[in-house]
């Protein structure tokens, strides 16, 4: 029993979570991008979740995708805030990608609600393409 109690004391000490601490928009953008990477990786890992039925796994996928969709929508909203010091041409590019990202987010939400996971790989590729296109235009390496 002592071992049992020690175990949960240990858990209490080490139980911590990651929180966004910065208020700056570019930093928030980076943090959300990192969150997207993690969410996508977690989606890949759902097949390795033990003791789950396929129905359970699809429920997990749905939750991850709805979170992913919300994160993309937030990211899309923040892209608008990044345009202040840009040229008009750059502003147009930003806004175009913000709209594309929002459309990607809506597609993912729709996919999740309908359990159309066979389309998942294609939809995620579209998200990656939108991010890549924007990053390439503004010379961001990631």
């Amino acid at each position, binding site marked *: 029993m002592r071992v*049992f109690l020690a175990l949960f004391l240990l858990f209490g000490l080490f139980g911590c979570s990651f929180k966004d601490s910065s208020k700056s928009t570019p930093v928030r953008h980076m943090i959300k991008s990192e969150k997207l990477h993690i969410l996508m990786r977690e989606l890949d890992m759902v097949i*390795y979740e033990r003791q789950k039925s396929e129905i359970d796994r699809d429920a997990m996928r749905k939750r991850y995708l709805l979170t992913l969709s919300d994160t993309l929508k937030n990211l899309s909203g923040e892209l608008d805030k990044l345009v202040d010091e840009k040229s008009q041409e750059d502003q147009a590019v930003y806004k175009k990608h913000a709209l594309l990202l929002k459309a990607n987010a809506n597609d993912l939400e729709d996919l999740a609600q309908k*359990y159309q996971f066979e389309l998942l790989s294609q939809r995620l590729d579209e998200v990656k393409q939108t991010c890549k296109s924007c990053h390439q235009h503004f010379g961001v390496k990631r």
Partner: protein
Amino acid sequence: MVKRNYLALGILLGCSALFADDEIEILRKQVEELSQKIDFIEKQQKVQKGVLELVSTDTVLSIGGRIQLNGNYSSPSTSYFASKIPANSEQKSDKFSMNARDSRFWVKTRTPSEYGMIRTTLEIDFFGSTATNVSVNDHNPRLRHAYVQIGDFGFGQTNSAFNSVVAIETANYAMDDTFVRQPVVRYTHNRGDWAWDVSFEEPNAMFFKNGSASLVKGQSDTLPDLVLRGRYFDSWGEVGLAYLSRYIRYEETGSSDGKYGYGLNLSGRIKTFGLDGIRFNAHYGEGSGRYIAYNGFGAGTITSQGDIELTEIYGGHIGYRHWWSQKLRSTLAFSYIGADTSDEALTYSTNITKESYATQLNLFYNPLKTLLAGIELSDATRKFKDGRRGDAQAVNFIVRFDF
């Protein structure tokens, strides 16, 4: 789709001067049919590579599964469960074995309906019966899941709602594994960050009883087990609390008894850094029996007066998974299970477990998304109620491909 319709309309308008009304109607139908065929082909082309899909008007059927090879070197030769490790004085020599029985095959469907999406799953593995022919290693299929979910309601055989909401990623099971798969009827309210389940499940109670060295089945159940579960999901992870209530009954000629048993199970996962995370489970119950540690302790003991004395069970596990790189990860886990079985049970059997605990450490490698190779070291101890002790170590190997 919209562009295509405009184009078709344009063609039709352009041609209207040249054709009679009935010809225009025929052309319109042909354009519609062509448009539908193009839509279907486009839909087919969007299907993910590697997924076999049979699409009817409404139902989508998917087929999948996995091929898994397990290798195990155990010292001494033993099953790695809380109540299976033999006492040190009774141990046999080491043993190496391999099998592919944990390979699985599943079929699932989804059909939209006015009650929400209807989803079904049917899954088998090959743990059916033990191979007796060592030349060809026959293994019979075994039903794992046969379950349908219609909107928020579900029925069939699947995992109990009392199970941990997440499991640690290990090759061997945790000593306190909270896991049952059985026939259920379930309502799930799954909205936003919360999910609630009410689940009526198959009742089965097992007991220590005079005249038997191992657990015997009661076979006198009159009510289904009830599980209530709440789950919460957030960006830091998820947590679930499940409550089990069951009426445990035993009857034989001349005597009968019934008691209410219960159990509480708290489980979850907490993200830490990057993909790393902690997974945990804590359990306490009286008469929770087979829901814990693969029925290692039973629900209770039938006393010499014919009464049921419920067994108190408590335990938990905690595991930390660390990612060394995108393809390489490890889990370090510790698990513990203890029980206060009636002293009277000792007069029936000496094979009664007081507590068991284990430590596991593994390294899993994913060269591809669907290919996994892993190795795990396990060290476990079992303490008997009569004071004896058994120790065991194991090395497990896994190679698995999901399709």
